[in-house]
């Protein structure tokens, strides 16, 4: 029994941590610029694929990972540029970002085929915690995710730039009036969020494997998590990531793997029916 609990705790946390990196960025972009960035999954997979390709070409792992992150940042810039002219039309924002996400997915499909690729892990080996075997890589990625998310929180609440970001999120017009260059803030948030997603993608490819289809999957998860946590609430989406992680793992343990996604989606729909603004959201 204890073993089962440890297993649920650890595995749920790892899944939650990775999706937390994706969802927090998605949430941040929406909070600041009111853009539903459907291309968020593109950064997730592209960075992983580039890192994989470079490792295969013989470059070192860390160089490959840095290059992957660079690509994620570039995708952030592209999404910023694409959405700028249509920012005030919500339908168009959704359509343009979604189309871009699918474009990237198809390009990856043409380049790499539909099969999964994995990146060699930062650390090898297996640890045993309370009788449960856990790979070092999983523990490391949990630690990295927690560090990134904490750093993000500190950055937003404590630093000067972070406060500008928050101010823009609360009221972009007022922020503009007090002299904040909100375009710069938008761009910055877009790049930062894409970096987080790209990093998550690389961790994901080390523990699991990515294929082009995963981009849509990452988007759906981020999406579901952000709705669950409440649109625009950074803390809400981080909390919701872990909730989703635990729902997944508990379902796998007690109900069977086949139900995992169905139960997750159903729970989210159920929560939305009861509390349509999500767990931590505020009604607009």
């Amino acid at each position, binding site marked *: 029994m204890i073993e089962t609990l440890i297993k649920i705790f650890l595995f749920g946390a790892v899944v939650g941590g990775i999706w937390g990196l994706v969802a927090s960025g998605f949430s941040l972009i929406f909070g600041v610029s009111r853009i539903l960035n459907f291309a968020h999954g593109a950064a997730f997979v592209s960075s992983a694929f580039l890192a994989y390709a470079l490792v295969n070409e013989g470059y070192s792992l860390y160089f490959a990972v840095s290059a992957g992150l660079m690509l994620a940042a570039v995708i952030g810039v592209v999404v910023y540029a694409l959405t700028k002219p249509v920012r005030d039309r919500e339908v168009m924002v959704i359509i343009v970002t979604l189309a871009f996400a699918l474009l990237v997915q198809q390009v990856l499909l043409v380049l790499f085929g539909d*099969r*999964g690729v*994995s990146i*060699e*892990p930062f650390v090898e080996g297996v640890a045993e915690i309370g009788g449960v*075997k856990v790979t070092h890589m999983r523990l490391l990625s949990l630690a990295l995710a927690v560090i990134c998310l904490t750093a993000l929180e500190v950055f937003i609440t404590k630093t000067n730039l972070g406060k500008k970001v928050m101010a823009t999120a609360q009221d972009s017009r007022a922020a503009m009036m007090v002299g904040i260059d909100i375009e710069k803030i938008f761009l910055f948030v877009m790049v930062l969020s894409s970096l987080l997603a790209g990093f998550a993608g690389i961790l994901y490819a080390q523990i*699991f*494997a990515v*294929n082009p289809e995963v981009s849509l999957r990452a988007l759906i998860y981020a999406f579901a998590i952000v709705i669950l946590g409440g649109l625009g609430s950074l803390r809400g989406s981080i909390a919701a990531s872990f909730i989703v992680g635990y729902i997944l793992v508990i379902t796998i343990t007690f109900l069977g793997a086949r139900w*995992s996604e169905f139960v997750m989606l159903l729970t989210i729909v159920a929560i939305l029916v009861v509390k349509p603004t999500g767990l931590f959201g505020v009604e607009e």
Partner: protein
Amino acid sequence: MRYAKAVLTVLILLAAITALCAQPEKAEREKVVIGVIGPMALPEGQAEEKAVKLAVEEINAQGGILGHKVEVVVGDTKLDSNTATSEFRRLATVENADVIIGGFSSGVMTAMMETMAETKTLFLSDASSPAHAQKVEQNYEKYKYWFRVSQNNGSTFALDLADMVKFLRDSGYEVKKVYVIRDEHVWTDPVMEALKPLLEEMGVEIVKDVKIPRGYSEYEQLILEAENLNADLIMPILAISGTGDILVKQWATLKPDLLLAGHDLSAIDAELYEKTNGMANYEIFLADGGALVTAPPTEKCREFVEAYKAKYGHYPESHQAYGAYDAVYLYKMVVEMAAENGEKDPFDPDILVKYLVRFNASNPVQLTRTIAFYDNHDLMWGDEYVRNWISQWQDGKQYIIYPPSVANGELKLPPWIQK
């Protein structure tokens, strides 16, 4: 009066257009057209197209079929039934394909078989559901144009998997308990149904039967559970999930005291070793489609993979290549047989069906694999025909390890196994 004139003009115009567009009735045959259809964005479809083109090139170099030049037309299913039926119809009626080769994916195949029946087109196909052959059985006249060439029907995996367990036991690895991980998909049901009694007979217990959805990735928990249940073997039955590579990777990372042996479509991919950074080592799998690049079962197969490499710069990207290549030669053979027997139209699909069924258990034909058909036009299964050879990844190479008649390697246990 003016009205009548206008109507007459319109009618004449229409008639002229119709006459222009209508195909001339069975004019002198100038060429043979072979259609190839598949998901062209995926390796399965691309392999089919390349293999057919290679075969056609070879045949044209030797004078074509009955002296006619052979031409290839391509259709893309995009794994979508609407698109697939439209494309099949285009190949059959606009491009006037004499035969269509390919397919892939059971649902799309089910939809295309309706178009095939309507257009009466010979269809030498790929896809693994037993339901397709059952259709032929139930309504022979309607569906007789369909033959399965690429691989055995999915339910035969039960026989191969049982043989796999038996082979492991005979090789000295004791198997008492098996942990099954399989696709949440209709194709695995008949496999499981047939496998259960076979394993029971051998005294092997299935400790758990886990179904996973498409895109599933959390295998580590399942591996740990299998270890806790004292399983000797994790048996994947995976094709649709698309994440067999994650299973093998996590198995190699956790190094549990049990083997990974079963049917995993991703293991057949010749690049799996590279894509998993070598983690695929020691996975035991079934070579679906009856051929491997590193272990070709026939001389023709050996020549084919080398010719493929020479033409395209790489080995076949999926096992659909063998079936598609064989299908072209099969078609050439039956047309020539029909002509030799003095058939009036040796390209008539109704007649060709009669010649194709002559390749039965006692009269197989050796191409890249040894091909024969059952009465329901399904591909014949067996050591002497095509089966899903028991194979293993060893240091970056795939070896067939059973049956001995085609094996080119021996079983190797992973170093971390203590049993």
